[in-house]
């Protein structure tokens, strides 16, 4: 006979406001099998947990039900407490009377009845819980980092410095990401290249880091501690081992007018190229769409001039499999574009800003390239249309951001600060020019941030105008900016030479596809979701996968670096043990009933179902049945629902338990 203990939590007032917890405790106490029931203000607190532990010992309880919040929140907490009191942790279940009851109801009487029923269901269920032993699995102490921007680089360096191998995968031909594109960084105005490129070199030279550039994640299999990652190395058409990085091929390539994505398409590059001179690795890539050889079969100049004979037109994409134990996702961001968006896109463009038709309306990243000493203009601020120096420059903040109508309701967080930086860079380079900024709010929380913004106004003479711009249009070689100053309450008109739009930060294109490969969740904008916004901000809900940088949401460099180091610390925590303990909520096959149809194998998303032969003593094959590898099984229950002969059962969620719950209603 089971002796069940039921503990009802008030959750401060969250539950007790709408549920009469004392009455629930009294009602539940009368249920068969329940030998103890009580209520407490905060069950998850130390005194609450002690109450639980003492009751187990004093009342000799065999099963526990905690009626409180969602098991996602505190199941682990209470199972740990139960284990500390000497019971098997899987003999403890949670009844959710907060999210499923008190938060969604107003009528106290009805909510109390419902809460009693929810607890009653869990009482019936827990009676049928089995003692489950913890599963241990070995940990592969290697880590995968996806994305070679500042987040990926920092995470990779931190993990590698701890002595663990890191596989760093970058989609572009060089690591560096967006930070390598920036000219200077707020709030100290240090040159981005000067602080970024040494880290890039560290990555290239680190004996523990294996770098895959121009590569993408093809497939991710396995689970925490034991992932198998298939990486597609795209054909570079240049042999990385032979190439010395001399660059002769690039000077001789006849295709010289290809817009360089790294320079926001205002600079040009050749068909065989490195995106920027400080690229790591300094090995060129042939852009096959624009190369004369691939288009016509003639040319081959790069191959002829290459001393070491590194150019290889026949090179094919390669698939490499890497076993890793943990994954850090650091895929970063992409910028919103003002152009009209394709039909059906949830994000809309701006018609009133000229659809990107006015050549001197550029975005913030393009301005960074203009201001960068290694950019296409050598650091001079020049108009893309006629190469003249703009004397009146207008910056407009919140383009795309905070525009619910355009499909983005969040604040992109960095634009206020980088626009302030842009006005300074402009003032330093064009002494007789004047910068104007149209803004809604200046959001500058951060160490030395507000001071930086004020400096752009008080010392660097930027004129900030609170109010948004309604429309831009070309008039001669000027762009007329129609805005308003809401502090004065009048319409404002400026004839500008150049307009810079602070466009919103969006997740990297294809972010959702990678998330699906990794099995991690993402929000409606395709930013990756953390397990808990406050208490587990760098971990995914999927075990063994961690987040760093702007792939999770808009972030500036200091924040990105902090998060990358935090993700690295989480990876190292995982690697500190040789064996990893896993929840034993896994499927089991009743071999006597299994007919070997393997419907379960077909539906298993984790590849956990294997085929097992059953033989008699003489070694004759009797039948082949399904076997679930407990190390791989994620406990989703799909096999249980699929099995036609009802021979698969998920521990903790057996048919018997579910039926008992329904019958209790």
């Amino acid at each position, binding site marked *: 006979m089971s002796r069940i203990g039921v503990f009802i939590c008030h959750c401060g007032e969250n539950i007790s406001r709408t549920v009469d917890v004392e009455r629930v405790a009294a009602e539940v106490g009368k249920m068969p099998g329940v030998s103890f029931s009580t209520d407490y203000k905060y069950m998850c607190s130390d005194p609450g947990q002690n109450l639980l532990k003492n009751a187990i010992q004093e009342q000799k309880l065999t099963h526990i039900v905690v009626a409180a919040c969602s098991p996602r929140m505190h199941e682990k907490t209470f199972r740990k407490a139960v284990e500390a009191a000497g019971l098997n942790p899987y003999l403890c279940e949670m009844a959710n009377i907060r999210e499923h009851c008190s938060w969604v109801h107003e009528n106290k009487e009805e909510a109390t009845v419902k809460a009693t029923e929810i607890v009653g269901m869990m009482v019936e269920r827990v009676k049928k819980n089995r003692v489950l032993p913890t599963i241990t699995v070995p940990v592969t102490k290697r880590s995968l980092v996806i994305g070679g921007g500042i987040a990926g680089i920092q995470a990779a360096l931190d993990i590698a410095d701890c002595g663990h191998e890191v596989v760093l995968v970058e989609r572009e031909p060089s690591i560096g990401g967006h930070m390598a594109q920036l000219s200077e960084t707020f709030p100290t105005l240090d040159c981005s290249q000067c602080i970024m490129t040494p880290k890039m070199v560290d990555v290239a030279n680190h004996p523990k880091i294996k770098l895959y550039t121009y590569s993408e994640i093809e497939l991710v299999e396995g689970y925490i501690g034991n992932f198998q990652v298939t990486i597609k190395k795209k054909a570079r058409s240049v042999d990385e081992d032979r190439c010395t990085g001399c660059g002769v091929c690039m000077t001789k390539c006849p295709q010289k007018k290809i817009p360089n994505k790294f320079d926001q398409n205002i600079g040009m590059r050749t068909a065989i190229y490195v995106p920027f001179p400080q690229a790591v690795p300094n090995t060129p890539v042939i852009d096959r769409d624009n190369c004369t050889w691939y288009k016509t079969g003639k040319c081959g100049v790069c191959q002829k001039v290459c001393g070491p004979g590194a150019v290889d037109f026949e090179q094919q994409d390669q698939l490499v499999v890497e076993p890793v134990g943990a994954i850090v996702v650091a895929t970063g961001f992409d910028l919103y574009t003002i152009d009209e968006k394709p039909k059906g896109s949830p994000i809309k463009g701006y018609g009133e800003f000229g659809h990107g038709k006015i050549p001197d309306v550029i975005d913030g990243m393009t301005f960074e390239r203009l201001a960068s000493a290694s950019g296409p203009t050598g650091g001079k601020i020049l108009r893309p249309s006629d190469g003249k120096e703009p*004397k*009146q420059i207008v910056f407009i903040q919140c383009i795309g951001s905070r525009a619910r109508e355009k499909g983005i309701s969040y604040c992109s967080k960095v634009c206020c600060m980088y626009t302030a930086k842009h006005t300074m860079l402009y003032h330093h380079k064009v002494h007789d020019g*004047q910068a*104007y900024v149209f803004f809604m709010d200046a959001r500058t929380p951060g160490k030395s941030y507000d001071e930086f913004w*004020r400096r752009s*106004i*008080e010392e660097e*003479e930027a*004129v900030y*105008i*609170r109010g948004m711009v309604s429309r831009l249009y070309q008039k001669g070689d000027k762009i007329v900016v129609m805005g308003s*100053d809401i*502090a*004065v*309450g*009048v*319409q*404002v*008109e*400026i*004839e500008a030479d150049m307009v810079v739009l602070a466009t919103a930060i969006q997740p990297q294109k294809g972010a959702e596809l990678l998330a699906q490969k990794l099995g991690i969740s993402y929000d409606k904008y395709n930013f990756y979701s953390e397990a808990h916004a406050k208490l587990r901000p760098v971990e995914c809900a999927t075990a063994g996968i961690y987040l760093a940088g702007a792939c999770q949401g808009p972030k500036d460099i200091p924040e990105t670096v902090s998060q990358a180091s935090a993700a690295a610390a989480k990876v190292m925590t995982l690697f500190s043990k040789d064996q990893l303990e896993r929840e034993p909520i896994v499927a089991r096959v009743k071999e006597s009933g299994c007919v070997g149809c393997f419907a379960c194998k077909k539906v298993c998303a984790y590849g956990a179902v294997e085929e097992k032969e059953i033989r008699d003593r003489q070694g004759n094959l009797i039948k082949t049945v399904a076997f679930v590898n407990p190390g791989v099984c994620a406990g989703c229950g799909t096999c249980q629902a699929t099995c036609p002969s009802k021979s698969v059962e998920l521990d903790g969620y057996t048919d018997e338990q579910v039926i008992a719950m329904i019958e209790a209603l």
Partner: protein
Amino acid sequence: MKKKKMIISQETMDVDFVRKVEALSGTSVRRCFQCGKCSAGCPMATFMEHPPNRVVRLLQLGQWQRILAGRSIWYCASCETCSTRCPNKVHLASIMDALRKLSWDAEGASKESYVQLANKLFLQNIRTYGRQYEMRLAAVFNVKSGQFLKDLMLGPKLLAKGKLKMFHSKNKNMSEIEKIFSRIEAMRKNGEAL
């Protein structure tokens, strides 16, 4: 009142004027971030077409004509509540002083302001008589401002109470008075006073 669209460019932003205001008032105009605390506490703000925060905002944009065309600076009572409470140490009362001085110098800009006229006549009287001769002040003010009958009926009442003198009396030390005026004038010329 129809509000004219503001054209902003390096030409319309009169930086020199703003520098003058900053030099005269000894405070920075750019420091203001438009929190509105000055206008919140100003006892005269309800009478002003541009409340104090907007005066500073217009200065930031170099649009002094808009300020001087209005009466805001003349309604300012110099109580200094704004300066005392400003979180950015913008001494708005000094800015108002500087603006009044520059408006005085520019004349034309605030022609419609009777406050300026009244102040001017007041000082002229002091310079001439060494003390105030209210009868003349009121008469000249009414003539110059074109409101001949303004407050006329108040005259007999004030006379009856002895508050208004028919004839002026003169200070005995007129040369000392003149010294004060000429000293201030010299200081102004050297830029030592407003």
